[in-house]
């Protein structure tokens, strides 16, 4: 092979390498494009429920203590869901609270007017900010109404109650459960 032939074949080899490199780089660029283009996000409809406890503070033997539904210490359930969706709610309330070890029990009662329900979602979790025009005032917690999420997508339930310690109620710490069940009625 003469000198010109060697130069030609070297040039041809370099050209092939350059073309292959260029194609590889182009593929990488394309792959990067695809990777960026394929970034996806999936939106799932969600139902959120949060709760703040009903606080009675210190209670004295023989002295009933009531927390009203518009008191800052009232229990709070906040439900957030899809605007326009119907929601069914059911509350299970205790008849008594028990001392650790269940050696004594204290009666707790919830009347048919112990509940405020803000269907406009404007109370922002504050029982004292509830206005009757924004939902159901003094409603029955034993039979909550079926309602719809309006444009604010938020419902808040404010719960009051009364504990009734006896004159010989054992001193100590009492606990009980309040259970709220929430279900969409349109799914």
């Amino acid at each position, binding site marked *: 092979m003469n000198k010109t032939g060697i130069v030609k074949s070297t040039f041809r080899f370099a050209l092939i390498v350059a073309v292959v490199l260029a194609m590889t780089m182009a593929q990488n660029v394309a792959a990067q494009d695809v990777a960026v283009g394929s970034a996806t996000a*999936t*939106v*799932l*409809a*969600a*139902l*959120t*429920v*949060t*709760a*703040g*406890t*009903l606080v*009675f*503070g*210190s*209670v*004295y*033997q023989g002295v009933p203590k009531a927390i009203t539904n518009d008191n800052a210490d009232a*229990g*709070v*359930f*906040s439900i*957030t869901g*899809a605007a*326009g*969706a*119907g929601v*069914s709610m*059911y509350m299970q309330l205790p008849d008594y*609270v028990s001392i650790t070890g269940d050696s004594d029990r*204290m009666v*707790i009662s919830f009347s048919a007017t112990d509940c405020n329900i803000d269907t406009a*979602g404007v109370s*922002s*979790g*504050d029982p004292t900010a509830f206005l009757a025009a924004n939902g159901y005032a003094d409603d029955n917690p034993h039979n909550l*109404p*079926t309602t719809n999420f309006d444009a*604010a*997508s*938020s419902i808040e339930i404010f719960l009051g109650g009364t*504990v009734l*310690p006896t004159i010989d109620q054992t*001193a*100590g*710490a*009492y*606990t*009980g459960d*309040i*259970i*709220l*069940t*929430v*279900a*969409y*009625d*349109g*799914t």
Partner: protein
Amino acid sequence: MKRSESLIPGNQAGFGRRFFCLLVVFILISTKLSAGVLVAPTVVFMSDKNRTGRINVQNPTDKPIEVTISFGFGLPESDSLGNVKVVIEDSNVVDPRSALDWVRAFPRKVLVPPNGEQVVRLVARPPQNLPEGEYWARIIVRSQQGQTTIPTAGESDGITTTLNMIIKTAIMLKFRNGQMNAELEVTNIQTSRDDKKLRVIVDMANHGNASYLGRISCRVLDADKKQVALAGTDLAVYRNLKRKLEMPYVPGEHLMPFEVEIKITSEGRTDIAREFMVFGNEINRVVYLD
């Protein structure tokens, strides 16, 4: 299981999501939280071709929550006044369309850390020769504060009380076996009014083998064809359902009689991906209210 996707157009969906997130954050900040849970999606679809599913459980609070997954059965049921309730049963369910006995969740009990997330996987093991149709169960996500503080009495004769706030979120699970169809019939419409509200009660019967999912809307026009009121809600009819729509109005402000337009359609659901929708018939009715 495939995840559902938003059907809301771009900017609107973005705004809606941002508004929803801000709303949740605002409520969480301003509420004295002791427990909380976010569950998504709000309905899970499984089938003879895809017997697995999943739900996401998030803890939106700054304390750990204990989450327990179980199953129940409960369909939307209505009373004579059109009020709809979902009553959950967890035992002695005899409904032939119940999937309660053959769906399982993993894990069934988990501690979700503050602001953490847990995926719960679902598996269906339907019996052999299951007749064609849709089968139902409710996924019950029970959550309460994970580290329960044992209260202490403040004084020697003192009595203190702590109430554990427990939340149960009931999510619908639908298992579809074979070809699905939903065929809705409106069997009766009642209208009434008092000095504050207009009421429309619609009786419906589903003749299909799958639940009819859609929306019911109602528009009231006066004698001059001016709009008096508008209402609508998501709809799920499994067998029979009587649904009430209430609309506020001001008596004397509009010319009677009122024309009530009722529309029921499978379109318009933004919470369920189209691939999971069983599109049924559309119904349009007009009735008059004196």
